[in-house]
C-alpha cells in the first residue's frame, strides 16, 4: 500500500501544539515543502527539536519568521538573528544542547534507551540540573531521551512503502529522527518503485515511516 500523500493532507495531520523533530542542518536536508505548508496552514504553539533554525526565510527559519514556535531544542541559533531576538525578548523558549548529545538523545528516544551517558558538557552550564553517573571512576552526564509527536524529515529517494535513503550531507539528523517520531512524514526528492532501493542502500526501513510527500521537487525550494 502506497504511503504517498500530498503535502496539504500530510500537514493537516499535525495539530497546534505538536512537538516536531525536524531534520536538516542549516536548511540542507530539511523538509522544505512541509515547513512552507505548516506556515501556510498557520500551525502554532509548536515545539521544534532540530539542529538549528537556519536563516530567516529558509527552512525552519520560516516557522520562526511566522512566530509559530513556542519552544525550541537546538544546538545553534547563531545563523538566525530573528531566533536570537525572540529568545532574548522571551517570545520563544530556547533550550541549547550540544550537537552530539542532541543526536544521541533523539536516537535513545527512538531506540528505547533510558538516556545517554556522555562526557560532553560535564562541569559546564549544560550540566546544571542534570543527574551525573559514575562509571568506573569517570563522570558522565545523564541526558534524557527525546521523542516527539511527529518527525518531519527529508530524504533523497523513497519507495512507495517508505524505505528511505539520503544524499551526502543532507543525511544529517534525518535518519536519527525517524525512529523517534510517533508519526513520521518524509519528504523525498524523488519517489521510486518498491525494490528500486537495494536492501543495503535503505538507511531508514519503511516500517518507521508513515507518510511520504508526493511530487517531490529538488530540495523543495
Amino acid at each position, binding site marked *: 500500500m502506497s504511503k504517498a500523500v500530498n503535502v496539504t493532507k500530510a500537514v493537516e495531520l499535525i495539530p497546534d501544539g505538536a512537538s516536531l523533530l525536524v531534520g536538516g542542518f542549516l536548511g540542507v536536508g530539511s523538509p522544505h515543502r512541509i515547513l512552507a505548508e505548516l506556515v501556510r496552514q498557520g500551525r502554532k504553539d509548536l515545539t521544534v527539536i532540530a539542529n538549528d533554525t537556519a536563516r530567516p526565510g529558509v527552512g525552519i527559519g520560516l516557522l520562526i519568521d511566522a512566530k509559530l514556535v513556542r519552544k525550541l531544542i537546538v544546538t545553534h541559533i547563531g*545563523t538566525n538573528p530573528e531566533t536570537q531576538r525572540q529568545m532574548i525578548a522571551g517570545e520563544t523558549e530556547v533550550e541549547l544542547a550540544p*550537537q552530539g548529545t542532541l*543526536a544521541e538523545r533523539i536516537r535513545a528516544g527512538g531506540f528505547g534507551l533510558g538516556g545517554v551517558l556522555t562526557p*560532553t558538557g560535564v562541569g559546564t*552550564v549544560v550540566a546544571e540540573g542534570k543527574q551525573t553517573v559514575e562509571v568506573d571512576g569517570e563522570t558522565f552526564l545523564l541526558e534524557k531521551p527525546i521523542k516527539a509527536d511527529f518527525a518531519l524529515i527529508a530524504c533523497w529517494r523513497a519507495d512507495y512503502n517508505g524505505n528511505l535513503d539520503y544524499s551526502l550531507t543532507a543525511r544529517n*539528523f534525518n535518519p536519527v529522527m525517524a525512529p523517534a517520531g510517533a508519526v513520521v512524514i518524509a519528504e523525498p526528492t524523488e519517489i521510486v518503485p518498491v525494490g528500486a532501493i537495494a536492501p543495503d542502500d535503505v538507511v531508514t526501513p519503511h516500517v518507521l515511516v508513515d507518510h511520504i510527500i508526493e511530487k517531490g521537487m529538488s*530540495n523543495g525550494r
Partner: protein
Amino acid sequence: MDDKVVIAKRVALELRSGNLVNLGIGLPTTVARYLPAGVVVHFQSENGIIGMQPVPEAGLANEFLTDAGGGPIGAVAGAAAFDSCMSFGLIRGKHLDVTVLGGLQVDELGQLANWMVPGKMVPGMGGAMDLVSGARRVIVAMTHTAKGAPKVLKRCNLPLTSVRRVDLLVTEMAVIEPTGAGLVLKEVAPGVTVEQVVAATEAALIVPDQVPVMAITE
C-alpha cells in the same frame, strides 16, 4: 602578514598526514589553505562527511553537499557520508585526531570558553562542546586580545565549552601549550618579543630560556 594568516599558517604546521581533522567555522577553516606540501589529511565536517574539500571542484558542487557553515564544498575520491550520530560518535569516541576551534577566552587551566557571552551573544554551542571534549588534540586558534583586552586569562569568566584542558593555543603573537603546571610559552610570532606576549596576557606564562620564533613563511 595578516594576523589571521599568521595563526592559520602556524596551526597548519600541527597537522600530520593521515590525521582526521575538524576545522571550526571562520578562521579555523582557513587553515586548510596552508597545509605544508606533502601533508595529506582527512577533513571531517560534523554535518556528516569525511573527505570534504574546502573549495568545490567543477561538477562536485551540489545542494546536498555543504560544510558545517552551510557553504558548498567538494568531496575527494573516497569520501564517506554519514548521519549525525556517526559524526559525533567519531568525535566523542576519540577517532578525531585534531580539532581546530576559535576561542573567546583561554585560561591558566587550559580551559576554553567559546560559545556564548551571557546577555549579549548566545549562538549556542553547536558541535563545539563535543569537539573539545572528544578530540584527541584540541587546538585553539584565536587572536591574542580583543580590542586591546587580553583573552588569555587567569580564569575564564565566560561559560566554559569544556572542563578539558586544550592541547595548544595559537595566536598571532604566540604558541602556548597548556600543561598541568600552567601555560608554557612555546613560540613567538616573527617580530614579536616575549615581553610583548607577556604584556598582552593576563594569565601567568611559564617562559623557557629559549623561545623560538614560529617557523612560518610568507
